């Protein structure tokens, strides 16, 4: 199958790895997320006051853990209340303007979920969706950061490109579907294109914003230290823009999921969006909810993976707090 072959040679397959990790571990991801950061800082040569702070940080870790425990308990309890409410509304056949009569109850959804994950087709849907995300997102990252950097630095580029962005940005993914199908040779390409567009604008705008926010005094300092334009760009503008770029990347990942799903619902034969819509056509209501929840988890997981991947570049910012 072409889809599976392509996943392996994906351009930015680095993204695939952490996202799977993040999804697999669920709640524990926060604890895991901290590890790489702390491991790196101890890599740093000459952290002189490490031993003195160990005892303190140990106590602190205990305290944090108990606070963490409480917060996570609250979160899980909040979710449980939601599920219970859902259970009640569906079993009581609540029909008060909103109709719960046809909404599957949580247990049925769970059973459907178990049935799906013991088969193979469900995984193909997920893999196809993820492949589209990765390709579309990779292009959006490369083009978005590139354009954002240029637009942030050059007034001319900004004047040329900004009108397009202003007009195209508000157009939702769904509105692109007819034209995308007409424009692109394959349905697959049109879905990826829509995914790409979704991620593109947040990345461009955040990158541009980050570049424009570079403090002038830092550029002046670099100039007086002998830096040329390219060096200023590499050592000052780019790092100054990184926090903003990282935000753009995370937002872009979320939006690319919205867009993907829109594309998959209307067309395509595989993908988690197609799965969800198909379940509706087949009057298989529990699977609708399975698909929806799966989309939610994938979206959250991949956004988290992006945050995790950008975190090492923002180490200096954590120190500022």
């Amino acid at each position, binding site marked *: 199958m072409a889809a599976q072959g392509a996943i392996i040679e994906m351009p930015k397959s680095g993204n695939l790895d952490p996202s799977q990790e993040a999804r697999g571990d669920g709640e524990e991801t926060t604890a895991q997320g901290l590890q790489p950061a702390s491991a790196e800082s101890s890599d*740093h*040569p*000459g*952290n*002189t*006051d490490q031993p003195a702070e160990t005892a303190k940080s140990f106590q602190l870790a205990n305290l944090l853990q108990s606070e963490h425990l409480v917060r996570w308990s609250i979160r899980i309890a909040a979710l449980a209340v939601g599920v219970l409410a859902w259970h009640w509304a569906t079993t009581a056949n609540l029909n008060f303007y909103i109709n719960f009569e046809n909404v599957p109850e949580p247990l049925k959804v769970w059973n459907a979920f178990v049935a799906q994950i013991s088969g193979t087709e469900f995984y193909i849907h997920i893999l196809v969706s993820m492949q589209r995300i990765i390709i579309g997102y990779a292009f959006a990252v490369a083009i978005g950061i590139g354009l954002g950097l240029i637009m942030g630095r050059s007034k001319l580029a900004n004047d040329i490109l900004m009108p397009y962005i202003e007009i195209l940005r508000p157009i939702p993914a769904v509105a692109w579907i007819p034209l995308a199908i007409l424009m692109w040779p394959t349905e697959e390409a049109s879905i990826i294109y829509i995914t790409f567009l979704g991620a593109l604008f947040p990345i461009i705008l955040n990158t541009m914003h980050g570049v424009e926010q570079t*403090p002038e*005094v*830092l550029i*002046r*300092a*670099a*100039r*007086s*230290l*002998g*830096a040329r334009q390219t*060096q200023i760009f590499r*050592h*000052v503008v780019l*790092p*100054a823009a*990184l926090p903003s770029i990282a935000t753009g990347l995370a937002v872009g990942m979320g939006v690319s999921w919205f867009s993907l799903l829109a594309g998959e619902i209307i067309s395509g034969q595989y993908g988690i969006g197609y799965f969800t819509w198909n379940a509706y056509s087949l009057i298989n209501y529990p699977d609708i909810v399975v698909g929806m929840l799966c989309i939610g988890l994938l979206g959250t997981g991949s956004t988290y993976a992006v945050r995790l991947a950008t975190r090492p570049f923002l180490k*200096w*910012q954590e*120190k*500022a707090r």
Partner: protein
Amino acid sequence: MLGLVKPMPQPTEETPRARNHRASEGHVEIQNVSITFGKGSKQHTAVTETSLDIPPGEFVCILGPSGCGKSTLLNSVAGYVTPTTGSVTIDGEEIKSPGPDRGMVFQQYSLFPWKTVKENVAFGPNILGRGKTVADSTAQTFIEMVGLAKFANRYPAELSGGMQQRVGIARALANYPRVLLMDEPFGALDSQTRLMMQESLLKIWTEFGITVLFVTHDIDEAVFLGDRVLVMSAGPGKIIADIKIDLPRPRSPDIALDDDFMRLKKLCHDKIRAESLKAFEQQNA
């Protein structure tokens, strides 16, 4: 090269030898400089017809109220601002753009927040292609000189304001500039920290023997630090007095209680006050 890198803090050694080693460099000449911003009705003259001759190794304070053009004048030496007329030269070379031969210390914290103290100080030597080994050892030397060896691997956000400015000074010196340009570097610090910083700046200057142009609006600071205080007045900015500060060196903060210090301080004060009054009367005329 390495000979230059090493001769740093030798507290037992007395001042003159160290001061002389580059006393031949850092001769700043400002000739008939006027600096005008904007065009037409929005035109604004920040500095007018100013000439200055600063011999190598001299510590010169430019004193004046905010908006008098003292920073603009400094920026013309730094190369950020091109004079509308006249010329600025260092050792006979005309200044056209910012460059590593002039170290700059800013009022706002201008360290690169994503670089550690050491990476900040090593930035200049690295950019100039000195090689990592030299850059690192140079950075180490200057970080020790400003007394921050323990903090070499910290990020700027982890340091206090005074420490950050010391890193700023170390970073500016790491390129072995001919002139150190300081734009109200201690203006944002609390007064105790400021006094400490002034003292340690004098120590560094004594060791280095570098020409310093120091912009400030604080009379005490100017008199305490400088060999010379240039009093500037606003509208348009020009130097109205060139006061020689013949107080003995090394100076300690106690000197601020001496009669000579008081006399010089009053002299500066009177000049500024006379100008301010004139400006005030003009505004209300």
